[in-house]
């Protein structure tokens, strides 16, 4: 049981930090522009696919740099020529625009790369077990993922709090007009933030693609989870996003690792039911079975009892 706990923690950490890379970009975009970007996970998918195509020619390492940049540029273009135009029609229109964009990107990916799973692999140099614990390998690539995610968090934190551009961005979040009056080009800042945010999602895709498999449904699997994280953590809060990412990553990992379920609870309570009871499905539920829907349950509960999220300062 002990080894399961250790590996569950490691897995949860990897997933959580990966989710954070997506959530950080999303929350940055949201806090600046008030746009909940539904297509965020689609940029993550684009990152993986771009990296796959680039790595066919140059190998993994150039793709690690090039693909996120490409995705970021694409994101900036979307902001400049799409979102900015829709901005006039209000927030609902913006949300719906990104919703349509997510739909479109998924279709476009299927058009360009086909529907079959792509054989996108981690680089050979990281293709060894970092350590073996209780008979299970911990791949070096996963350690690399953890390293990249933490580096991104530190860099982002540093940029936002210690640099001039970070201070301007922070100011633009709360007082866009004042920042504009001070002579800063606010639309340019928006575009840059959107580009960087989507670029981060692309980077997450590049490093997650080899592990979580690169296929057209990969955005769908992650899309709403990232939303859940941003909302649970509190809209616009970077620290909240980090905490919520780790929370959800670990929660799911532990839930899967556990073997508990309703039968155990009922045994403990001393209640028993016949097998053909109409609610039999509920009495047989186990934690691993419902692990992937726990985040949604958490989301609904958090929104009911604390609509601003764990760390959020504003409500919508």
């Amino acid at each position, binding site marked *: 049981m002990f080894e399961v706990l250790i590996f569950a923690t490691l897995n949860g950490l990897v997933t959580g930090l990966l989710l954070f890379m997506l959530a950080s970009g999303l929350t940055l975009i949201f806090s600046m522009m008030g746009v909940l970007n539904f297509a965020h996970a689609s940029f993550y998918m684009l990152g993986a696919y771009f990296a796959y195509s680039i790595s066919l020619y140059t190998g993994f390492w150039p793709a690690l740099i090039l693909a996120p940049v490409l995705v970021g540029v694409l994101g900036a273009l979307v902001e400049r020529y799409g979102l900015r135009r829709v901005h006039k029609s209000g927030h609902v229109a913006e949300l719906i625009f990104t919703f349509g964009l997510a739909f479109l990107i998924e279709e476009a990916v299927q058009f360009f790369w086909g529907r079959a799973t792509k054989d996108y692999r981690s680089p050979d140099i990281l293709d060894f077990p970092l350590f073996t614990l209780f008979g299970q390998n911990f791949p070096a690539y996963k350690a690399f993922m953890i390293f990249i995610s933490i580096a991104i968090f530190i860099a982002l934190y540093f940029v936002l709090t210690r640099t001039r551009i970070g201070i301007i961005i922070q100011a633009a979040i709360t007082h866009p007009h004042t920042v504009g009056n001070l002579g800063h080009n606010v639309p340019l800042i928006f575009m840059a933030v959107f580009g960087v945010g989507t670029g981060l999602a692309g980077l997450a895709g590049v490093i997650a693609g080899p592990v979580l*498999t690169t296929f057209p449904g990969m955005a769908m699997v992650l899309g709403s989870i990232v939303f859940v994280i941003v909302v649970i953590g509190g809209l616009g809060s970077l620290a909240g996003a980090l905490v919520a990412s780790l929370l959800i990553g670990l929660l799911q990992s532990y839930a899967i690792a556990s073997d508990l379920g309703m039968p155990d609870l009922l045994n403990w309570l001393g209640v028993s039911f016949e097998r053909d009871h109409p609610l039999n499905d509920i009495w047989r539920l186990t934690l691993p079975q419902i692990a992937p829907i726990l985040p949604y349950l958490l989301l609904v509960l958090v929104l009911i009892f604390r609509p601003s999220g764990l760390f959020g300062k504003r409500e919508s």
Partner: protein
Amino acid sequence: MNILKSTVWLLRYIPQFCVTLAVFCGGQAFAQDPIRIAFIDPQSGTFAATGESGYLQLQFAADYFYNDKGGVLGGRKIEVIALDNKGSAADSQQQLRRAISEGIQYVVSGNGSAVASALSTAIERHNRRNPDQRVLFLNYAAVDPILTGADCSFWHFRFDAHSDMKMDVMTSHIASNPDIHKVYVIGQDYSFGKAVGDAAISMLAAKRPDIEIVGNELHPIGQVKDFTPYVTKIVSSGADAIITGNWGGDMVALGRSIIDAGLDVPIYTFYAAYDGITATLGEAGKNKIRLVHNDYANPVTNDVRRAYTEAFKAKFPHKDITQPRLATLLQMLTLAMEETGSTDPFAIATAMEDMRVTNITGEEVWMRGEDHQAFQPLYISVHTDENVVFDADNSGFGLVTEFSVPAADTISPSSCNMNRPQQ
């Protein structure tokens, strides 16, 4: 006045408009028309890869075996019409109505047992309510035993082995390996995943009572981002074989996670090949992944099969023959047509009962009349790059058959109580 004029002007063009939208306005079939088969499978969306390749294979088989050799019933060609059901039961019914509107009498489908059972029910009802517009359902891949069991229908024929038959073969193979003592079962949380788990446990208990089932896990279908936590449980359970009914993205991700964790045990699957899966599993899955199926894989010894596969590869270099039984399906259908000299679904269905044909691999296939289930030899093949003549996904890797069960040993008693219509 102006409005009235332009309305009249518009009205004059309506018939023409309708001709363009002929599908929408309905049409009628003529006697010397081609024999049309509606292929109702996903052509768009997440599951499109299999539906798309199934359509190409069916049309290719029709051209290769019949149309290029003068057609059937004195020169009529076989035309396959792909109708996109988007993987949904409701859309399948919509497409069924489209097929019926166009006078099509044969429906081929197979991706997903939910869709197949919805189609089977819908066709049974339609044929009962409209005896003059009957339709035949030829199922090439949906494996839920219930389709030829409790829910069997006179109008439904299955050319694939159902999941219990396949599981019987799989457990026999496991039972024959004395090194296996602990088996872990993991599957998607829906009827097929559960059926695989239940069948594996009961059959292993009967064949090798000493084998311990160390885990029977269900995970939500298509929702799992990372299978590593599941693999951790598998590792700590000490399993020395894994059984899974997973398909699509869930199969790839599970396979990769198991291999990445360094777990070196055989993985028994139903669907871990083709459509990008073979390429993705690649070198890492070599000699670990096994697959139960009824399509004899490498080494191909039969000339008909070899020529057919080569011709297909020449036309579609990026596709594979994943469903050779589509050719068996056409064989039985056309033989029934020639025998009865008609295309009437009732006559065809009656003729196909207890029909025996030799398929393109040279094996005899028997369509049992009681429940319309086909019987043919079943195989276990291994994912490898040695001795592979026809690889999958152009990856160099493919399936090599290592265990076979003759058709006679796959027969189990029928539980079908068929409601047979009158002529």
